[in-house]
């Protein structure tokens, strides 16, 4: 579909956000993914989240690895620089980019192969370093571009299109991320835009590592009746744990949610997360209960979605490393080069 160019004109009366930008200003090139791919819904949710958050797109860096999911960074935010790197290595590229300039918003998009197999090491270390980024996994349990092999997030006993059963336990990226110290861990379903958009907004506002594991069905290779990552399975087994509003210093838009307990968290950047828990069984700010909650539902074959864990104590890599408040890529010669006199003093030390 690459030959279809998006028209450059748009309707003059399109709604605009506080920056005077329309949703069109947050779009990318036309997707080349299969019609009905869950990933396109995630791209749409990212566009919506950025539009609503009123982030200037050029202050976002989109970084990805290799695979269907990683291709999507081209399908949103045309005004942002994008980096489609090598397979499984998006976290290191994002880490370097973030060290160079901590003031941009880093949006990483990856897949289950890219994250849970070839990239598991880099994923784990980006989490434990508390890299300030939103890491979205478009999780379909399969390798699409190479035509349908099982991935490491594919559930044990789940079958592929040809009826072959997966013999290995799956890796739960959300549990792993909580274990490794991620500050914000959420799961969602690409078909639930109402849940996904605020999750992305909250993740982008969070100062630290934010994982959003989005179950995103592969319509071509993993959407059959014996798959646990199909649209039908998700609709039948999605246990929504909470709904949230994310408000960035603007009047709250009240949401019409089912009654439950509410948790308010003020984020580092001043925005408010208002989390409506739909179950009284767990506390998402407690890592132990978040983990046991995940495990319990997993045993039942239920996919829990929503904010699974939230650490109100926001810390990122720059805080830990004590690096300059000014972005390193903005510093000039006077701040960086010690000069000839300092070198003369240094020479004396080596005499």
């Amino acid at each position, binding site marked *: 579909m690459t030959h279809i160019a998006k028209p450059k004109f748009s309707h003059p009366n399109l709604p605009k956000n506080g920056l005077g930008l329309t949703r069109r200003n947050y779009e990318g090139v036309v997707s080349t993914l299969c019609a009905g791919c869950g990933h396109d819904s995630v791209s749409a949710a990212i566009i919506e989240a950025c539009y609503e958050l009123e982030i200037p797109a050029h202050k976002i860096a989109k970084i990805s690895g290799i695979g269907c999911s990683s291709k999507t960074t081209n399908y949103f935010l045309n005004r942002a620089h994008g980096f489609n790197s*090598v397979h499984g290595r998006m976290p290191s590229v994002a880490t370097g980019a973030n060290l*160079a300039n901590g003031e941009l918003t880093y949006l990483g998009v990856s897949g289950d192969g890219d994250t849970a197999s070839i990239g598991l090491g880099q994923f784990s270390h980006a989490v434990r370093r508390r890299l300030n980024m939103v890491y979205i996994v478009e999780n379909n349990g399969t390798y699409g571009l190479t035509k349908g092999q099982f991935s490491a997030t594919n559930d044990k006993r789940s079958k592929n299109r040809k009826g072959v059963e997966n013999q290995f336990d799956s890796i739960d990226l959300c549990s792993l991320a909580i274990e490794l110290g991620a500050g914000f861990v959420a799961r969602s379903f690409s078909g639930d835009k109402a849940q996904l958009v605020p999750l992305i907004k909250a993740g982008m506002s969070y100062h630290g590592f934010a994982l959003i594991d989005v179950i995103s069905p592969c319509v071509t290779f993993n959407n059959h009746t014996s798959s646990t990552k199909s649209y039908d399975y998700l609709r039948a087994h999605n246990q929504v744990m909470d709904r949230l509003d994310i408000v960035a210093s603007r009047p709250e838009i009240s949401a019409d949610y089912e009654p439950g307990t509410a948790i308010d968290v003020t984020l580092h950047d001043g925005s408010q997360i208002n989390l409506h828990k739909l179950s009284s069984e767990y506390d998402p700010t407690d890592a132990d209960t978040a983990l046991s909650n995940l495990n319990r539902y997993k045993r039942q074959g239920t996919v829990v979605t929503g904010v699974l864990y939230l650490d109100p104590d926001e810390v990122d890599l720059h805080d830990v490393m004590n690096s300059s408040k000014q972005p390193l890529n903005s510093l000039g010669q006077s701040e960086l080069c*010690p000069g000839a006199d300092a070198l003369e003093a240094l020479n004396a030390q080596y005499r």
Partner: protein
Amino acid sequence: MQIDKTFNDFVLKFGNINGSGSASANLLCAKALFRMGLPVTPKNIFPSNIQGMPTWYEIRVSEAGFQARRDGIDVMVAMNPQTYRQDVECVVPGGTLIYDSTMKRNFGRDDIDVLGIPISKLCADNWSDPRQRQLFKNVVYLGALARLIDIDNEILETLIAEQFRSKPKLVKPNIEALEIGREYSRENFPNRLKVRARKSTRTRGKIMISGNEAAALGAIYAEATVASWYPITPSTSVAEAFERYAKRFRTDEDGKLRAAIIQAEDELSAVGMAIGANWNGARAFTATSGPGISLMSEFIGLAYFSEIPLVLFNIQRGGPSTGMPTRTQQSDVLSCAYASHGDTKHVLLFPVDPGECFTFGADAFDLAERLQTPVFVMSDLDIGMNDWVIDEFTWDDERRADRGKVLDAVALEQVADFGRYRDVDGDGIAYRTIPGTHEERGAYFTRGTSHTETGGYTEDGTIHAKNLDRIARKHETAATLLPKPLIRDLSAKSKLGIINFGSTDSAVREALILLAREGHGLNHMRIRSFPFGEEIEAFAARHDYLFVVEQNRDAQMRHLLVAETDISARKLLPILNYDGMPLTAAFVHDAVLNLFAEYEDIAEACATPITAA
């Protein structure tokens, strides 16, 4: 012993057990000789081990300024009974062996002087703490040796005071230990040794520093801000020195660091971070060794093809595989020149010593950004981890970092149709933008997949080939910007030349002098960079035969010359050393003479009067 060898021309060797604290005493000895004005060449020959294995430290003193390692030990301090046999063997006839005679031993050589000092006993008598008894052994032998070869006492004591500046309590016992050794030697060996040190002025304007520290300093001066690395011998001290200098020179008013030094989880991540940071407009580097280069290769190809500046310090060690991690080699020439799959080619710089580690280290960042491509600084263990006597560092405060072709917001306003990979100037180098620069213009998509001039995905073969051709053109541009080879026409009419690069230079220069004394005049070219400039072919054209000296088995530089120039392979005769030890002049000299014997016409080509040496 010849008279001219008596003063300021000898080799000391220390045989120790690693982890016993000998390193600082041995360095002290080298530093004291250096402060006496003597050019010294210390070589640390250490095991890949933490404690208990044999380790050696050699110091060549040469007032004439020869800096290569030299075989034939004049004074051996043998502190490791495990290696007595080989340590005794390496002493030249008429030389001296000093050992710990607490356990007496007959070494079976009557052509050398054996001086036994009951070092363990002296330490046991003077200290009760086992750790001190162990550590001060090293200082006791240093005290004895210093007296025997006339190392200036005041200089030694000053150095001890400097060494323990932060722990002043340790100064006194160290000086006492020194005196215990000195005292014992005075009482028991009234005659000093035949080899002696005598103050000189040969190190005026010189410093003594390792290549890894110098490379890190180059990165500091070049305004590098991000260092991502994974520990690997012998490159680790590059990152550690960078951190040390950064804390010293780059701490801001808030106590925060104007640099980010990050120990990655592996080399893949280390290079990925450096690429991410460079992409985002910071100057970033990684430091590694051969195994790390292998792991980084996929990412290096990405940086090459998506044209991201990148600086890699490769401190080469003995390969293949894990090889000899603590020995030196020049065996990554080919793996770096063509690192990664597909058609790739990279810029290599070959520093000769810590001085060039500093200058090339700084230049590498300018070149990487000018050319938008990976640049390798090809140091090695010998340069990187040993201390070398070099000219003092200098820096021109007028120098400005060359950030290459980067469009800022103002420039973007004037560019009608920005294309990240469009060759506007015809030198193969396109303009890049840094994320976050302009709200509407200049964003592009960086990818390792084949791309159009604007960064779009393409499977169009014509566009792909055109893009590859442009990148090749960029490397032609590179050849004009890189450090040129250093050519010395020592024997203007000679049809013989010697080609080398990197740390082999001191051995080659000394060998050329030895050969000249024997009537063989050769010219000399030291290659300093790749892709090769036209000077290299021109030098080859003037000569019938060229000896190519390198420290690897497969003659990798010779391969590169054959592949990348029109020089006939028949002209290039390899001289190869790959035992992991720093090269000696004797090795090069003997290899040249062997080739003379093998090819009759070489001797003819050489039979020209020598005009210089």
